[in-house]
């Protein structure tokens, strides 16, 4: 059973609009969350993270929101650019198991010019 879920396999957004990628988790012990971005033929690269003591973290055009009671987080990209087209993985860690993280299945974002 997947502990980290990304229920939208794909998402298309017009350039300049907001992209919202969603992630749900089931393990209440998770206390640190990360988003990774992956282009074809490249490995994933770290994008942004959030600790469970916060409900929002912002880095330029990227903002991650965490709703602990709903076990839900979302990544907002504003404004979306064609170069943001990639697969986005949500990941979570409970900090107890040798720095392991659990990855979601990913959402493929297409930003249309």
């Amino acid at each position, binding site marked *: 059973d*997947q502990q980290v879920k990304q229920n939208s396999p794909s998402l298309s957004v017009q350039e300049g609009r907001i992209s919202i990628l969603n992630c749900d988790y089931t393990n209440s012990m998770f206390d640190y969350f990360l988003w990774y971005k992956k282009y074809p033929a490249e*490995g994933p*690269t770290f994008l942004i993270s959030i*600790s469970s003591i916060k409900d929002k973290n912002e880095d330029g055009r990227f903002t991650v929101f965490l709703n602990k009671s709903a076990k839900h987080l979302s990544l907002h990209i504003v404004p979306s650019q064609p170069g943001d087209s990639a697969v986005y993985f949500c990941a979570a*860690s409970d*900090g107890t198991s*040798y720095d392991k993280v659990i990855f979601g299945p990913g959402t493929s974002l297409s930003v249309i010019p």
Partner: protein
Amino acid sequence: DVKVTQSSRYLVKRTGEKVFLECVQDMDHENMFWYRQDPGLGLRLIYFSYDVKMKEKGDIPEGYSVSREKKERFSLILESASTNQTSMYLCASSPPGTSGGPTIRRIAKNIQYFGAGTRLSVL
């Protein structure tokens, strides 16, 4: 810049062959990981290592083994390749997370740095 290098981008092997996937990192990271990426399943952890000669099973270790004889190198071994091991294999490294006292859980603040991946086809 952190660099994680996987020895092959593409590999084609036959069922029953022994397969070695090599990964080298240049940032003196303690932790190294092997994942496989399959459509709809995301990245699943096969094995990881938190120090030289140390290894821990991930979520899907069956059919795989690993070797970490040097800090910078982490090898994934398919003892007898099977068609269901056709996949994209990704190696990653990271420094260790923050440690606390015995009553404080480690907070995994580390970021993992990935190689470009090896696409393995087993025929």
